[in-house]
């Protein structure tokens, strides 16, 4: 069975909510929309205090090409335009909306009827990309890169395939898994649309073998309806959901070091959740304002998969799953390997929120770091072929130049090294410092070179 070729680890899967059907979460009393929900320029608010909005009303427009508009997931009145502490831990500009009723924009098709590309043969790639851009769709796996940018490859590069990331390699998370089981037809139409938008006629859907039901279901549907979509079962290994790792696993090509893009080897990678959002945006005229979120944790009463309107505070979702347990030590936005620990549970659900994970006191504490015994397990685990022990030491000693020569900027921050370290060393903490400093140096030099000209 296929998998990526370098490194990788096997964290305990803990997919507690894998058999829980997606339930619709209750509407919040006040919904909060941070303006920086994606990579690129933050969105710019276009509403002011007292404005009435409906479900699906645009409340902020894109702040540039690499940016995305933001839509209200609730109907009601704008309470204020202020700041909120989002998952990054920083206060960001945000729009607060007091919820009144649940009135949707008339343009949105709320019927359950499946619309396929056969029903709308007139759609051109430009139409599809335009609708994706207008609907504010970003990568829903967590990186939140605006989808229309990915579908607009730089001149000179030619995409060959769309690769759908249905790996969900993060432990605990099951949102994508449930989405594939419950919305398989819609997801496949979404993939079809992405293929048309990228002007390719082959798509792969990479799914890890720990989701055999999803593999079987999609396989069956593709056999009948979509001969040019191939389901690729993958051997379960973290970080298979990393874009570069997934491309390597599925088509055996390795994207060169930054700044090369995946499209340089012919691949456009999109998350399965994104494919579903594309279906809804293009076929149902529904902008991105709700998503499936896994709320989970070993001490949580009812781990669940919830369909959540964006802007809903996480605390409300936790309450819906049995409340915050007594022994909570950490609340994580996302999965345990790459998610962000939150300062409080009032952080709103955004476009990239794939999960809310509760860890108890014991799980949350890190063990005391010990001296490096040079066991080389981090080197064996690194999916980028780097030497984490060396990068961490160089960063710790502020030897950033040498860290750059050792390719610190190639680090994808997957955490495999720190996960595997028997000495419990905070490898990734240190490497992050080295990587961000090195990237700063690179930017400075580029700027200096430009001025020199």
């Amino acid at each position, binding site marked *: 069975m296929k998998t990526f070729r370098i490194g990788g680890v096997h964290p305990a899967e803990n997919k507690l909510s894998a058999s829980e059907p997606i339930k619709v979460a209750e509407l919040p009393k006040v919904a909060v929309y941070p303006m920086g929900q994606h990579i690129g320029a933050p969105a710019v608010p276009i509403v002011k205090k007292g404005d009435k909005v409906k479900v699906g009303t645009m409340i902020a427009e894109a702040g540039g090409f690499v940016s995305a508009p933001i839509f209200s997931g609730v109907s009601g009145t704008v309470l204020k335009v202020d700041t909120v502490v989002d998952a990054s831990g920083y206060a960001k500009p945000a729009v607060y909306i007091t919820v009144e009723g649940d009135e949707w924009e008339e343009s949105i098709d709320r019927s359950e009827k499946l619309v396929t590309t056969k029903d709308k043969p007139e759609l051109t790639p430009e139409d599809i990309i335009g609708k994706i851009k207008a609907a504010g769709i970003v990568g829903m796996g967590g990186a939140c890169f605006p989808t229309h940018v990915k579908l607009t490859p730089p001149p000179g590069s030619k995409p060959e395939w769309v690769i759908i990331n249905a790996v969900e390699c993060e432990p605990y998370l099951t949102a994508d898994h449930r989405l594939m089981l419950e919305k398989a037809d819609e997801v496949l139409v979404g993939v079809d649309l992405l293929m048309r938008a990228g002007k390719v006629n082959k798509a792969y859907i990479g799914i890890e073998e720990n989701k055999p039901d999803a593999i079987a279901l999609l396989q069956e549907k593709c056999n009948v309806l979509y001969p040019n979509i191939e389901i690729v079962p993958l051997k379960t290994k973290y970080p298979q959901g990393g874009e570069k790792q997934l491309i390597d696993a599925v088509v*055996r090509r390795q994207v060169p070091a930054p700044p090369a893009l995946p499209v340089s080897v012919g691949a456009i990678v999109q998350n399965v959740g994104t494919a579903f959002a594309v279906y809804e945006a293009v076929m149902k005229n529904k902008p991105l304002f709700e998503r499936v979120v896994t709320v989970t944790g070993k001490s949580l009463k009812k781990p669940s998969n919830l369909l959540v309107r964006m802007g809903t505070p996480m605390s409300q979702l936790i309450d819906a799953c049995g409340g915050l347990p007594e022994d909570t030590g950490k609340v994580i936005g996302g999965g345990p390997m790459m998610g962000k620990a939150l300062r409080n549970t009032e952080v709103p659900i955004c476009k990239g929120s794939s999960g809310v994970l509760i860890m108890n006191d014991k799980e949350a504490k890190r063990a005391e770091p010990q001296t490096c015994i040079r066991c*080389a397990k981090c080197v064996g685990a690194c999916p980028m072929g780097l030497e984490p022990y060396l990068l961490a030491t160089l960063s710790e000693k502020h030897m950033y130049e040498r860290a750059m020569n050792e390719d610190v900027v*190639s680090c994808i921050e997957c955490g495999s090294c720190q996960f595997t370290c028997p000495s419990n060393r905070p490898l990734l903490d240190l490497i992050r410092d080295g990587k961000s400093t090195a990237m700063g140096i690179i930017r400075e030099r580029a700027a200096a070179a430009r001025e020199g000209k």
Partner: protein
Amino acid sequence: MNKLIVSLSPHVHSGDSISRNMYLVIIALVPALLCSFISFGIGAIITTAISVASCVFFEWAINKFCMKNKNCTVCDGSAILTGLLLAFNLPSNIAPWIIVIGAFFAIGVVKMTFGGLGCNLFNPALAGRAFLLISFPVAMTTWPVPGQGFGTYLDAKTGATPLALMQEMFKSGDLTKLPEVEDMLLGNTGGCLGEVCALAILLGGIFLLWKKVITWHIPVSIICTVFVISGLLWIINPVIFSNPVAEIFSGGLMLGAVFMATDYVTSPMSAKGQLVFGVAIGFLTIIIRIFGAYPEGMSFAILIMNAFVPLINSKFKPTRFGEVSTK
């Protein structure tokens, strides 16, 4: 509600620890240890006990009185492991005071003066053995004959090791005295306490591979290199060179390949580097065995290559993502 802990990802850990690895290696040594008890009787037990006890004592004492470390490193099992491996590299009829000196050199000089676990350049147990071999050449090369009953210790009858016989054979061209390969597999030959039963060592090695404590690169590259080079020599002249099977099962080769060369601290970090390291050890072993003054080549080969580890680490990097051919 408690205050939430905020830290960077990853938020989970494999649960692996230094002591887990050390104790797994110790478990892997148990079969070879039992074999040595069967072969050499109580002498093996006494030697092992003295070696382990003095290594642990020196580690504790130096930690406590010289290094003023807050968290003592005795509990992590590395000193026990060094003690076991040092005992494995001694003849079972050696005097107790020599063992204590060896333990002091291994832990005190080779390990702790460099900063303790993780900082030492050379394998402590092997360096201890080399020190004793040079300081007490007679005591260190007087090998008890196995199977003399349980009560044998200092009074054991002694005889030559297979490697000494091979070197003699190389010089005289007389093939008749060489022991059978089955005897070397099962520990029916003279030699260091832990090295005589190749089968038990292989069993331990398979256990370590299964538990992912070590990778295959170092042991396989050493054994293959020795097999290939000695095989070539044997094809050239089967009269004076021993056959490659005898060569890989004799002396400290198995012990060295599985337990000594794979020591985390003193072996290279990348898979490529580990292969280079293993091939070089295999090559040096054969050279020393055939042309050197000592019939034993393994321990010196490993120590020499230990010194090259920093160089190997800077020269042989892991294959970076994107370097692999795209087809």
